[in-house]
C-alpha cells in the first residue's frame, strides 16, 4: 500500500515576465519505511513539487492529485491541511540556521508545534518531549540545550534540532529538502546516518530531495531524476547507478567526483538549466544533450520503460565497474526503470561502448530521418504510459 501517490502534478506561477512552469506533470509514490530520492539541478522543480504537496507555495496554480493516506492533499481545505503539516508529514529544510526562528529558543519552537497539534498536552509535558527528541537526535545535555537559541547551536546541531522537530509528532512521511547541502562534509555523513537510523526506528517514509548523487547512493531505495519540471528517469537506486539510460542522468553521474564509470577527469554537463518561462521545444534537455537528434528538437519524449537485453554469456555487461567487479543488476522488466528519451531503450550504462552505441543510434536516426523514424524501434511497446 502506497503511503503517498502523486499523479500528474503540475505547478505554475504567474509572474510579471510570464508563467513559470515549474512542474509539468510529475508522478511518483512512496511506501512506508522506504526512501524516494528526487535528484535534479536548481530549477528542476524538485523542491516546488514537494512544497506544493504541503500547500507551501502561495500563488501557485496547481493541478493533479496527491493521495496521502487515502486523502487528496491538493484538494484538502486549509484547516485540514494544517493538521497534516507537521503532524503527519514533517519537513526538513536546507539551511537550518535560516529555517529556525532566530528569536525563539529551540525547545520553545518544538514545544509550540507539539502543543499546536495536541492542545491537551501541558507545557511541562511538551517540554519533556522536546528534551527527549533533542536527546534522540544526539544533542548532548538536551535538558540544558533546550533553552538555547538557534545561533548558539553549531550547523550540524541545528539540523539535528530541525530533525527532532520534524520527528516530534512521529509523522508518517518526512520530506527532507537538501538537508545536508549547507553542512560540512563530515557533518553531512552524521546527519544522514541519523536520518537513516531514525527512519528505521519510526518506520517513516522519506522523500530525500538533493542535487547530490552521493546522498542518493547512501539513502534512497528508488530515485526520480527531474529535469525542467519533468521526470527524466525513474529507477531503483542500483539500476540508476549502473545502468542509467537518460543522457542527463549519465551526465549527472559523470559529473560526480569518484563516480562509477569515469576514470580521471570530471565531465560537467555543458550549458545551463532551461528557463521555465521559455522552455525549449521538444525534449527540454536537447540543447545540452550530446546525443541530440532531429526528433528531440520537435517531439517531447514520453516516459517509457527501459528494457536492457541480458548480456550474453561471457560478455561483459554494459554497466561493469572499471575494477571488473560485476554489479548485480536486476534486468527484469518490472516497469520500475523508465526514461523520457528517444534514444534506444537498450542503451544503458556508463562505459565507452554504450556511449558509442548511443552516438551511432543518434547519427543513424538523423541520417535516415523520414525513412526509419524511430531510433528506438527495437524497443517493445508496453512501457508507454
Amino acid at each position, binding site marked *: 500500500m502506497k503511503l503517498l501517490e502523486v499523479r500528474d502534478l503540475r505547478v505554475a506561477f504567474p509572474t510579471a515576465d510570464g508563467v513559470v512552469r515549474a512542474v509539468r506533470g510529475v508522478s511518483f509514490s512512496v511506501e512506508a519505511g522506504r526512501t524516494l530520492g528526487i535528484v535534479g539541478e536548481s530549477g528542476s522543480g524538485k523542491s516546488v513539487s514537494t*512544497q506544493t504537496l*504541503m500547500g*507551501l507555495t502561495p500563488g501557485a496554480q496547481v493541478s493533479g492529485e496527491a493521495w496521502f493516506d487515502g486523502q487528496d492533499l491538493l484538494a484538502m481545505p486549509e484547516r485540514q491541511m*494544517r*493538521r*497534516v*503539516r*507537521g*503532524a503527519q508529514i*514533517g*519537513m526538513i*529544510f536546507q*539551511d537550518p540556521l*535560516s*529555517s*529556525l*526562528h*532566530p*528569536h*525563539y529558543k529551540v525547545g520553545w519552537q518544538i514545544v*509550540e*508545534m507539539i502543543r*499546536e*497539534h495536541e492542545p491537551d498536552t501541558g507545557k511541562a509535558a511538551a517540554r519533556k518531549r522536546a528534551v527527549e527528541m533533542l536527546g534522540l537526535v544526539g544533542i548532548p545535555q538536551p535538558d540544558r540545550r533546550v533553552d538555547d*537559541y538557534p*545561533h*548558539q547551536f553549531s550547523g550540524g546541531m541545528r539540523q539535528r534540532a*530541525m530533525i527532532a*522537530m520534524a520527528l516530534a509528532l512521529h509523522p508518517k512521511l518526512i520530506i527532507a529538502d537538501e538537508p545536508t547541502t549547507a553542512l560540512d562534509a563530515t557533518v553531512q555523513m552524521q546527519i544522514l546516518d541519523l536520518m537513516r537510523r531514525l527512519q528505521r526506528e519510526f518506520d517513516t517514509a522519506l522523500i530525500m530531495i538533493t542535487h547530490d548523487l552521493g546522498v542518493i547512493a547512501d539513502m534512497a531505495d528508488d530515485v526520480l531524476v527531474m529535469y525542467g519540471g519533468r521526470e527524466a528517469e525513474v529507477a531503483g537506486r542500483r539500476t540508476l547507478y549502473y545502468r542509467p539510460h537518460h543522457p542527463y542522468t549519465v551526465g549527472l553521474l559523470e559529473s560526480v567526483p569518484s563516480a562509477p564509470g569515469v576514470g580521471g577527469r570530471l565531465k560537467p554537463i555543458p550549458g545551463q538549466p532551461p528557463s521555465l518561462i521559455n522552455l525549449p521545444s521538444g525534449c527540454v534537455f536537447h540543447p545540452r544533450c550530446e546525443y541530440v537528434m532531429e526528433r528531440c528538437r520537435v517531439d517531447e519524449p514520453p516516459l517509457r520503460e527501459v528494457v536492457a537485453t541480458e548480456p550474453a554469456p561471457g560478455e561483459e555487461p554494459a554497466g561493469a565497474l572499471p575494477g571488473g567487479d560485476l554489479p548485480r543488476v536486476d534486468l527484469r522488466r518490472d516497469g520500475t526503470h523508465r526514461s523520457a528519451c528517444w534514444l534506444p531503450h537498450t542503451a544503458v550504462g556508463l562505459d565507452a561502448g554504450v556511449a558509442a552505441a548511443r552516438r551511432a543510434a543518434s547519427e543513424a536516426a538523423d541520417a535516415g530521418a523520414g525513412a526509419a523514424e524511430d531510433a528506438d524501434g527495437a524497443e517493445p511497446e508496453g512501457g508507454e504510459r
Partner: protein
Amino acid sequence: MIRFIIRRLLFGVLVLWLVSTSVFLCVFVAAGHPEQVIGGPRATTETRALIRHNLGLDEPLAVQYARFLGRLAQGDLGTSYIYQTPVARMIGDRLQTTAVLVLGASVLWLAGGVLIGVLSATRARGLADRFATLFVLVGLSMPAFVVGLLALFLLFSKLGDAGIHLFEPGPPLQEHFWKRMILPWIALAFLLIAGYTRLTRGSMLDVLGEDYIRTARAKGLSERRVVYRHGLRAAMTPVVTQFGVDVGTLIGSTIVTEKVFGLQGVGQLVVQSITVGDTPVILGVVMAVALCVVVANLLVDIGYSFLDPRVRLS
C-alpha cells in the same frame, strides 16, 4: 547585559558632550552679544561692559568653557536673559507638555502604523493594501499645520464655538486633559503613522519571505500565529529603531502642532527664544532635546536585546 548598558551610557555621555561643546562654540563664541539683549538698545557702554563682566564673558574662552561644563554637569542650564529665571525650570514645565503630546501620539502612531502595515503586507497588492498605500502617500505629503487645522475644523463643525476655548493657550495641562489632548495626539500621530505603515509593511514582507516562516507554516501553525507570533516579532526590529529616533527628536520639533492647539511646549519656547535672542534658553532646549534623543536610543538598545537574543550575547 550590565556591561552593555554601561557601554551605551558612556556613549550617550560622549554624545551629550559633543553636542554641548558645539553649541557652546556656536552660540557663545560665534554669535554672542548678550549685553545688547539684556541691556536693551539704549544701554551705555559701561552698562554693557558690566553685563559682560557679570556673565563672565570677559574671561578667557577656556575658563568660560570650563564653567559652562561645570554648570551643565550639575544640571544648571544658566539663566534666561529675558526672564531672569533658571532655564532648567522654564524647560521643565514645557518639556512635560511636549512629552505628554509626543508620548500620547506615539502610542497612536505605533499601534496604528504597525496594524495597518501588517494588514497591508499580508494582503499585498489587494484592495486593503492599495488603500493603505494611498493613505501613506496622503499622510507623508501633508504638512503638520494642515493636519492640525483640518482636525480643528472637523471638530468645530461638530461642536461649534463651545470647543474652541479648549485650545487657547494658558490654563494648566491638567484642566480638561483628555478633551484637550486627544486632538493634538491624533494630528501628530497622523503625520507619523504613514511612515510606520510603510516601514512595517516593507519589513513584514521581507520577513514573510524568510525560511523560518516557511518552517512555521510547515509545522502546521495557524496563519494568524505565523504572521503575528513569528512574522511580526522579527519584523519589529527596524520599527523599534525608528520609534526611538522619532520620539527623541520630536521632543524638539512639535512646534506647529503646539502652536495650532495652543500648547505651551518646548517647540513654542524655542521659537520665542530665537525671536528675542534668549541664548541660554536655546542652548538649554538643545541640550534637553539631545538628552531625550540619547535616552530614547538607550531605551531602544535595551529593548533590542529583549527583542533579539542575538544582540544580547554579542
